[in-house]
């Protein structure tokens, strides 16, 4: 029987292909060990596990429009995607996923991450680097009296309106019962007004102390918020010296018992930005502590040399995300392509992370985190253990039921079931599908459902036997008549799975994939494989009169 030979050959070929697809192979994994990248070789079954099974972190990022509207969101997101991908690639996780979903979201999946907060920081940091010359023309000192005046005027307005505010607050007290946000707004206006009133004359200049060089001011740590609130007043903003901007330092400075936060007046136009940066690496120096050393490309180097040449003797603030890093160094002579950012008293890891985000480039739009899922590795292992246990028990039950009820034919069905599990796993491995916890549940579930096709066929064969047909005819007829019902049920399930795949996310997608792969494999196993088993049996024992079914 050549037909039978082909059938057996096809099954054997598929088994071999599946075994090959599932054979544990050596994969090279990039892992981060003691802060350095290393390549590890691991032997494992090439089945991708989802985050919920191996532990890790899932992030959904969106463009943050709370501060400023972004005109072309999709384009901005495309550019952000590249930056985030570069950063993640360097972050040192094996098999990370960074992809755009829809038009307004980036999905980041980091398997096996153990420090979620650090990962979030690396992904979200804008890393916009600017070099700005500090002001030496005492521009702020010149306008300070006016700023004080503005603040006093506002304070005066508030003072005269104190009764008014109080009245407002009382009025506000009634809606307070219904809305908490209203009450907090009322409170904040109240505290603002008291601060302003208490500050009195020279409100701002009183809080600012001259620093060690022009353009540097010291603000006591406890006054920082007050100064910030003054500077946020629109009139004050308008009265600031033109072409200059104010930048806070990222660090505090302690002088005696008090700690101060420096405030710098710098040229609004940066002499150079981070876009020319080609490399950045952390270093530990004995004098300056932790630093990030950077290199600029040729064009950047030329511009940098030019500009610094013009500003010899000036101080240069290194501004990252609107914060001045370290204390601005004095420019001794024209600087070329190399420079360094001092990190103050921060540790090497933050220097590493800064170097990483600088290398990857800056995010032009701020991103906010719309969704975080973080699953511990132990939970994943636990899930795998429980899922495997459930799977084993379910298969045990199904084998018991099938063999107990259908005897010899049941054994054939169990053989087909074993192949079914093998094929399904192989399909998942072959297509690089991700096995998730719901997927594992789907696998257990389809084991129960997969035998349905066999049950349909066997019941049909029994009916045909009851009508007095021969074993061979009954088997043929059984398969033939059960076929349409099997196709119908399989197709509806596959269609449902496809819809689920389209609209599901992460873990549920995994479930849909298992469902589709499982039904396809089950269709083949129940119909083709079982039939082949029967054919082999019929071939070996000619003239059979009875069938154990």
């Amino acid at each position, binding site marked *: 029987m050549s037909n039978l030979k082909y059938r057996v050959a096809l099954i054997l070929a598929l088994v071999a292909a599946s075994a090959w697809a599932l054979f544990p192979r050596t994969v090279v994994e990039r892992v981060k060990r003691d802060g350095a990248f290393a390549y590890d070789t691991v032997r494992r079954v090439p089945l991708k596990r989802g985050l919920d099974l191996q532990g890790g972190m899932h992030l959904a990022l969106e463009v943050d429009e709370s501060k400023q509207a972004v005109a072309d969101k999709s384009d901005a997101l495309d550019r952000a995607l590249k930056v985030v991908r570069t950063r993640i690639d360097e972050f040192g996780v094996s098999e990370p996923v960074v992809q755009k979903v829809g038009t307004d979201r980036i999905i980041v999946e980091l398997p096996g991450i153990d420090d979620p907060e650090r990962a979030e920081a690396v992904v979200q940091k804008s890393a916009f680097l600017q070099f700005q010359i500090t002001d030496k023309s005492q521009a702020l000192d010149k306008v300070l009296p006016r700023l004080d005046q503005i603040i006093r005027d506002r304070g005066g307005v508030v003072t005269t309106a104190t009764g008014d505010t109080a009245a407002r607050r009382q009025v506000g007290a009634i809606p307070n019962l219904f809305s908490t946000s209203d009450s907090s707004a009322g409170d904040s206006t109240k505290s603002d007004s008291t601060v302003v009133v208490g500050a009195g004359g020279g409100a701002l200049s009183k809080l600012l102390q001259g620093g060690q060089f022009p353009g540097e001011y010291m603000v006591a740590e406890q006054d920082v918020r007050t100064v910030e609130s003054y500077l946020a007043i629109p009139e004050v903003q308008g009265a600031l010296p033109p072409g200059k901007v104010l930048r806070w330092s990222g660090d505090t400075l302690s002088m005696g018992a008090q700690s101060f936060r420096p405030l710098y007046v710098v040229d609004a136009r940066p002499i150079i930005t981070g876009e020319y940066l080609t490399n950045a690496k952390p270093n530990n120096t004995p004098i300056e502590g932790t630093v990030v050393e950077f290199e600029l490309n040729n064009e950047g180097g030329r511009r940098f040399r030019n500009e610094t040449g013009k500003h010899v003797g000036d101080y240069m603030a290194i501004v990252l995300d609107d914060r001045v890093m370290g204390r601005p160094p004095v420019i001794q002579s024209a600087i070329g392509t190399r420079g360094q950012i001092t990190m103050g008293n921060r540790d090497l890891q933050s220097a590493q992370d800064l170097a990483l985000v600088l290398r990857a480039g800056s995010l032009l739009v701020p991103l906010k985190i719309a969704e975080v*899922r973080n699953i511990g590795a132990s939970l994943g292992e636990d899930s795998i253990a429980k899922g495997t246990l459930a799977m084993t028990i379910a298969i045990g039950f199904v084998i018991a039921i099938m063999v107990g009820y259908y005897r010899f034919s049941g054994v054939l069905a169990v053989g087909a079931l074993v192949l079914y599990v093998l094929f399904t796993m192989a399909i998942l491995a072959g297509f690089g599908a991700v096995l998730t916890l719901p997927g594992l549940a789907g696998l257990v579930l389809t084991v129960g459902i997969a035998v349905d096709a066999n049950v349909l066929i066997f019941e049909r064969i029994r009916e045909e036997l009851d009508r007095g047909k021969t074993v061979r005819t009954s088997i043929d007829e059984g398969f033939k008549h059960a076929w349409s019902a099997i196709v119908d049920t399989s197709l509806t399930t596959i269609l449902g799975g496809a819809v689920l795949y389209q609209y599901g996310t992460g*873990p549920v997608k995994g479930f849909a994939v298992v469902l589709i792969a499982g039904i396809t494999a089950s269709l083949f196993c129940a119909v083709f494989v079982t039939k082949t088993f029967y054919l082999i049996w019929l071939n070996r024992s000619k003239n059979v009169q009875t069938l154990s079914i």
Partner: protein
Amino acid sequence: MIRIFHNTSFDFIKWWRQAAIATAAFILLGLASYLWSGGVNYSIEFTGGTLMQLEFTQPPNPAELRSIVDGIAPGAEIQEYGTSREYTIRARSATDADATSTTEGVAKAVATALDAKYTSEGYRVVRTEAVGPKVGSELRRGAMIAMFLVALVTLAYLAFRFEWRFGAAAVLSTAHDVLVTFAFIKLFEIEVSLVVVGAILTLLGYSGNDTIIIFDRVRENLRKVRKEPLYDTLNRSINETLPRSILTHTTTLAATTTLLIFAGEVLRPFAWVMTFGVFVATFSSIYVAGPLLLYIERRFPRSVTDKGQASPARVKADSKVEPRGDRPARPAGGTPRRPATR
């Protein structure tokens, strides 16, 4: 050869009234509970908010935990999760549009507070989920669309494979399954997560399968036995497929109950819905789809009916008679060229 429910002749359809009353009562109960105590217990994924799963080295005092969490996120739900050492904390986000930062902030604030109380060695955060309200509402919409699409796709497929009367009966019975499952989810306070939506969709497919198997047999029997009322054909088809139904449901039930018992807390809602679903599928394919088909046949009898036939309830499904009445005899076992159903 072991045989169960072999050659039975139960009159299943006779009980359709009782079945209809039972299922309607269940659905109404669910609806009443829905109106009484508000919506379904949606998971964090759908509402937006924060979920933390904690594992303590020593079983903590629940009241103590409560007071710590209440200080940060008032109204958060605290539940024991499997063992007395594991707890979940769910803080649903307020309705304000941009709660993302605060959503995530809750997890950190709770962790800080717990550090102070139990020290960082005393517990472990095994899982955190923080979902912004926008993502949640999108997921909810996606789930709705998915369910609607599955129903639509099933209808289209059944209409293509069977005749529209069969398709309509199958889809209506599928709609019934959804309602019953919703009632079950509401009455047993099962948390509706994405995985549960997946279970509902799988259930739709599974229950649809059962209906298809029976209808397929009805179709076949209609071709074979031409003088039988549809009522009897339905009953006969259900009885003939009974051993298959029992066996398939047993194996599926074995799978879902093992999931329920052994697969852990995360999959439990899924396993509950699937286990319930096996019973719903059995019930609806026999007591809902069958009577619905009968009803539809009665309301919309086949176009060319024999005038001499009796009550429309007893419409012979294949009583079309050629105008000349001299139809050639069909070869046995062959596919009829013009069957009752497409």
